[in-house]
């Protein structure tokens, strides 16, 4: 028992796994349609977009030094509008427009990374400012010929396979984009030199500098990757809902940060994992779905997220005081 509690305290993925099982049992018991294969497979698509943003925050927060990205939702909005305007209004080839949308996301991240890494400005301030800037740009390019920012919905039909197609009931974006990407990111963090450098930088920038770690490049690149992931989320979302709106990402930044932290990413940097964040995404997606099926207003999705975030922080403090054996 003590060993179990110890594992709960020290291993966040394990904690979330137990939490998930408990939740699953409760929901299956209370809501019959919850544990149907269809429902389980179908709900996965709702975790993809916020999941990609949470991965982005995971990398950025691990890099340390107050690393955080408040602009991630706004990058999503801007990328979505770039794709929408280029393809829907200007009639550009959809593949090319999508690529440019991804590049736009990466560029936004690069701007953040430049200020944080090379000018050494606090990430909170940088991304708060760029949040305003990217939101504003998204609105500006959304302006139609009558001067009003308007959604774009006339995508070519072929575009919708990304967000609406399923294979054996599994959504395309889950099997073809999210899972491979989660694997790649997990691989990147746990198996490559980049991952080593990232954790080194997040643990101590000084020691990293003394150890031949290219600290500035690493910090710059996590913001670029973050922006790129937001661009990808924009692509999937616009395809799923068949529309690009300049406020698509509103409110998503704080949700993404919450999920990353819930997944065990240390807000002080240097600690976190893709597996942990993935578990948090699964927990949250299942929770949202269960609440919805139970007839609880979708409004309470975000609220439960808040309760879980604070609750897990408190649980962490209590458990680590009592059971953490690491001295």
């Amino acid at each position, binding site marked *: 028992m003590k060993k179990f509690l110890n594992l709960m305290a020290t291993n966040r993925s394990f904690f979330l796994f137990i939490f998930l099982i408990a939740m699953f049992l409760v929901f299956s018991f209370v809501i019959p349609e919850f544990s149907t294969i269809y429902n389980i497979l179908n709900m996965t698509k709702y975790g993809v977009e916020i999941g990609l943003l949470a991965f982005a925050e995971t990398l950025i927060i691990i890099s340390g030094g107050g690393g955080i990205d408040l602009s991630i939702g706004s990058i999503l909005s801007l990328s979505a509008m770039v794709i929408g305007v280029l393809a829907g209004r200007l009639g550009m080839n959809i593949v090319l427009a999508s690529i440019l949308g991804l590049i736009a996301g990466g560029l936004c991240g690069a701007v953040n990374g430049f200020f944080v890494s090379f000018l050494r400005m606090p990430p909170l301030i940088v991304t708060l400012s760029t*949040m305003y800037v990217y939101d504003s*740009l998204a609105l500006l390019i959304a302006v139609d010929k009558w001067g009003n920012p308007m959604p774009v919905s006339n995508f070519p039909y072929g575009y919708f396979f990304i967000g609406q197609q399923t294979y054996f009931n599994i959504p395309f974006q889950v099997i073809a984009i999210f899972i491979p990407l989660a694997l790649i990111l997990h691989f990147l963090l746990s198996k490559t030199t980049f991952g080593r450098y990232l954790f080194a930088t997040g643990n101590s920038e000084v020691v990293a500098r003394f150890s031949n770690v290219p600290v500035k490049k690493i910090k710059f690149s996590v913001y670029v990757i973050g922006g790129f992931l937001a661009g990808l989320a924009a692509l999937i979302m616009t395809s799923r809902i068949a529309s690009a709106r300049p406020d698509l990402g509103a409110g998503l930044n704080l949700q993404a940060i919450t999920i990353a932290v819930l997944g065990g990413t240390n807000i002080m940097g240097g600690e976190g994992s893709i597996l942990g964040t993935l578990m948090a995404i699964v927990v949250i997606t299942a929770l949202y779905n269960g609440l919805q099926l139970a007839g609880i207003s979708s409004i309470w999705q975000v609220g439960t997220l808040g309760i879980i975030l*604070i609750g897990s*922080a408190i649980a962490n*403090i209590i458990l680590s005081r009592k059971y953490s054996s690491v001295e």
Partner: protein
Amino acid sequence: MGLKRVIKSRELTVSLVMIGLVIFFSLSSKRFFTANNIRNILLQVSSIGVASIGMTMIIITGGIDVSAGSILGIVAVVLGKAAVGGFPAWLAIILGILVGLALGSVNASFVALLGIPPIIVTLGMMSLLRSLTYTFLGGRWIASLPESIRWMGLGKILNIPIPIWLTIILIAYFSYFMKYKSLGRYVYAVGNNIEATRIAGVNTKRVLFFVYALAGLLYGVAGAIVVGRTGIVQTNTGNNFELQVIAATVLGGTSILGGKGTVFGSLLGSLLIALLSNGLILLNVPALTEGLIIGILILGSVAIDVIKNRGEE
């Protein structure tokens, strides 16, 4: 002697930029420099200005509060429901402000007593309160507010609107507080060096608790002003409010790393933002560029600070 410091201070820079803007907007638009428009700008400033007092103190201690807007939202709901439900206006307003204080105290307990990082506490709080607001309102608006409750927004004393009075009084009092009360001094001390402050015999937990609880109270006042002014409570009342307040505070010279800043500076920061958005509208610049300009302004001013400080080191 102190002149050099005044010249280098952020307050002066912001003031000069504002004077420049006022002159520019006055020359560009006849509608700008009118009593009516000026009053509009000041009214717009008041809620952000009052809330920025609490935010300034929090950031000075090295913390952050992203739950400001959602606390304001809840306060608005409580106030609105109480007023519609037949409470006398004064009681509804007091009730609203007390709710703000209570929610601020919840933040305060987690941050000061349990030692959970402020960003996590206030993030969680924000998510939770947003849901509560939606639940209480059930997706509807409260629009049929009794005229009496709008006093906080529309009432006048000596022909000057109540929100402007409140802003002036609160900013003046807390400027005085930060300078003349030992607790105000400790707020700075905690942000400069919390360990040294503790060793100097100051109860740093008490200081932190005070700051977050007071901030909640002030968001409550800001909520009463917003409801009074707009006469409506919606599910999105207070959305993004926290970001505007943080932006005003940082623009006003409060260091996000803690230890320095002034309440008055934050008021100037709020004024600058309000002035800009008002002027841009009068100039027929699309409202959409407002965020662009504010964002670049914050980024630029902090970048200059960072580069300047590096030179001194």
